């Protein structure tokens, strides 16, 4: 695709039937975090679809405002589950982002370079260590959500058996190793032997996909499929964003092999909620827990209720947020690229958490927990809660 300069039109390459499905009724508007934050039609799914139509069907120019409308989409896909006409919004925004990424060559190169680190686990771990050190010295702004501590060890997580794979991913493996450790202990307590995928399958490619770098994301998908297709055991994922992407590999690549792979992928709570009787009965933790649903668990994988099923035996009380699963604004690396909007979106989420009056918030996605933690909330992964309950510790 040829690069064009600002003001010129652009071929978006969206499936015309998918684009024509929206009736512009506006029922998506309240479920869009950017519309909620701004009240601006061009920051809503209906507005973005109308703009895609204007660009694709009528050759409207890509002005700065049009570009902003597209690049401010968090891609939470909350609109998709709330659309009565079931408009496949993901199939509209992904090609749009791809066309935009290709339009600006320096921008796509920058993304390629930055996101390239995700497939280099050793560099990531070194980077994470450095960032944490800088954070402790107060040299990194708090809003970037860098945690204050990181994994103690760079060594691979030892395998406890070969019943399931635990997909450990890129950023999470470097920065939230303790979540993987907790997940491994919980699975072991259920008598499930775990093999962490570690550096063999370093990155799922979800963030590349969201940034419009489709071909890179597909290269990552092929790599992951190759590395984990030695047998057909289930692949458990404790990051909602990675799980959603890996379940969509079949659609990305369109091959039988990819579809078969996607069928083996489970969110860890989704899988565990069917195996709860294998876990020992323990005294529930004396906490009131609020569950924050990562968008890619609720709106894409649609298995967010399993998180509650898995948590219920292990805590005194589970409370729901009253915002019907509205996005928190993390959106992969969105909170780094759009800090101001992401912050406004997060304020609404923090309000809902406050109203729920919970002691602890859990989130099954690394991006969400970093973003929420940066607002000063105590955020855990559900696996850490179950792990704590099983260890007989409290709070």
């Amino acid at each position, binding site marked *: 695709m040829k690069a064009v300069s600002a003001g010129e039109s652009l071929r978006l390459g969206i499936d015309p039937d998918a684009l024509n499905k929206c009736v512009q009724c506006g029922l998506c508007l309240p479920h869009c975090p950017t519309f909620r934050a701004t009240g601006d039609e061009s920051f809503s799914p209906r507005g973005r679809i109308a703009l895609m139509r204007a660009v694709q069907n009528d050759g409207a*120019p890509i002005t700065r405002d049009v570009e902003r*409308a597209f690049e401010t989409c968090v891609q939470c896909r909350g609109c998709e589950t709330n659309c009565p006409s079931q408009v496949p919004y993901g199939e509209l925004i992904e090609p749009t982002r791809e066309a935009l990424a290709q339009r600006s060559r320096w921008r796509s190169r920058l993304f390629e370079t930055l996101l390239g680190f995700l497939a280099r686990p050793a560099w990531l771990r070194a980077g994470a260590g450095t960032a944490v050190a800088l954070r402790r010295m107060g040299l990194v702004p708090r809003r970037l959500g860098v945690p204050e501590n990181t994994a103690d060890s760079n060594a691979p997580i030892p395998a406890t058996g070969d019943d399931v794979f635990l997909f450990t991913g890129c950023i999470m493996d470097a920065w939230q190793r303790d979540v993987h450790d907790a997940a491994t202990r919980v699975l072991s307590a259920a008598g499930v032997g775990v093999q962490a995928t570690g550096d063999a399958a370093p990155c799922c490619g979800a963030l590349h996909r969201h940034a419009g770098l489709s071909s890179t994301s597909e290269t990552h998908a092929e790599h992951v499929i190759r590395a984990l297709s030695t047998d057909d055991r289930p692949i458990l994922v404790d990051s909602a964003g990675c799980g959603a992407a890996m379940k969509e590999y079949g659609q990305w690549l369109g091959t039988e092999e990819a579809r078969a792979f996607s069928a083996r992928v489970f969110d860890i709570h989704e899988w565990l909620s069917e195996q709860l009787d294998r876990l020992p009965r323990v005294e529930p933790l004396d906490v009131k827990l609020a569950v924050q649903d990562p968008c890619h668990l609720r709106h894409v994988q649609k298995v967010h209720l399993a998180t509650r099923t898995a948590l219920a035996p292990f805590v005194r009380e589970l409370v729901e947020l009253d915002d019907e699963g509205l996005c928190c604004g993390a959106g992969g690396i969105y909170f780094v690229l759009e800090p101001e909007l992401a912050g406004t979106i997060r304020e609404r989420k923090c309000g809902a958490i406050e109203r729920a009056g919970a002691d602890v918030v859990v989130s099954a996605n690394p991006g969400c927990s970093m973003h929420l933690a940066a607002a000063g909330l105590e955020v855990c992964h559900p696996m850490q809660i179950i792990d704590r309950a099983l260890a007989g510790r409290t709070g």
Partner: protein
Amino acid sequence: MGFVESVRVRIAERKVPPADRALLRDLRRALAHDRVRFDAAERALFAHDASFDEGGVSGPICFPVSTAEVQALTRVAIDHGRAIVPRGAGTGLAGGAIPLGAPIVVSLMKMNRILEIDGDNRVAWVEPGVVNLDLSNQLRPLGYHFAPDPSSQQVCTIGGNVANNSGGPHCLAYGVTDAHIAALEVVLPSGEVAVFGEIGPDETGLDLRGAFVGSEGTLGIATKVAVRLTKNPPAVRTLLLAFSAMRDAAQTVSDIVAAGMVPAAMEVMDQKITNAAENFVGAGYPRDAAAILLAEVEGLEGGIAIDARRIEEIGQRNHATSVRRAETEEERALLWKGRKTAFGAVAQIKPDYYLHDTVVPRSSLAAVLEEIYAIAERHDLVVMNVFHAGDGNLHPLLIFDARVPGEIDRVHRAGDEIVRASLAAGGVLSGEHGIGVEKQGFMEELFSADDLEHQNRLRETFDPICRANPGKVMPIGHSCADIQALRSVPTGVWG
């Protein structure tokens, strides 16, 4: 907005005609640089609402955050001889918020605060951009809600409800928006701020609050609204009755009212729309029924148990094929979700819809519905019916594909015939969506010249030169419909 951004905007707007550049400059002084937009693509978005009207042309789009800013931008409009069109969530279905003649579009979405909840007087002061359902959700812990519940309540705003005097399923028992607005603070087309209505006992003198509610933005812009709070019912029971003929469902509704009951809501959906809604929500609606009736009773437990049983009996006398009671709150919520999102589900079948809004006497429901199906068949169109059966408010949905040549013309012709059939049965033009641009042409069929003349005089008292939402409600040819009275740019200049 930073300096770089404002320079960028200035460069982008270098081709704007000088008169408009002056208008933009003054509006930005009155509000803020980044809350006045002029991008062509963005203006195209604000040229539409949720109706299938082809849309107008928007001038600058303003996002005020206070009454003072609305007043200031009104004064700028006066200085520059421009019209003003207020806009909420843009879910109107009659084109009421469509800008005609490149007016200043005033989006009230950033004025979305609940200012004060006054439990003693059972009112809340809210800004016009508050979303209807958000308000009821915030009031719920206090034991109250805002009674009007349009199907679009998850997105539509209180300001839009006031403008259209909106109804909703539960308005059967509670009355429409007008009954729930105690007072309003408005910015008049002259730029003055006035308060209509009172919180306490009814005010004496002319009911200007009553005149303003339902005026579709033609008398000014409401900037604060005192809404009445309705106590949440102690108990609710929701019933789903299925019928093998639409006539039986309609007769059941008439019989329930004739038996002296006023249920909180009575909603009917035909087979096609039921299936589209079921595909989305999976509420367990019976897919094979020709019509389903969703009836809800509320009050004290003992009373509603009797009412529910009587409704079931009346349904069975009218050959109901099944009767189901919602056993849990989740089940009830799902039954309502399907009803309230039904009109948005039609793209599963065709990508465009034309949603009507006539009201007919309950006794002629069945006959008018049969005529509507016949009209659609004559024009080779698909029609789906979903309606507020209790108050005879019909919502025939003509669905079509605008890409098919000639289909829009057939939709227009069928739509006209549906409206005429409703009027002939003793009905009226609109139950809740308003007149907007959609039904202006029919005003002369419903009202005499004298009626219209008096309506026009009322409007001129507020707005002698048609600054506020010109070209709406009153039929073309009446003075205020003449948008050229203002020095506005004709349609298409900036297209």
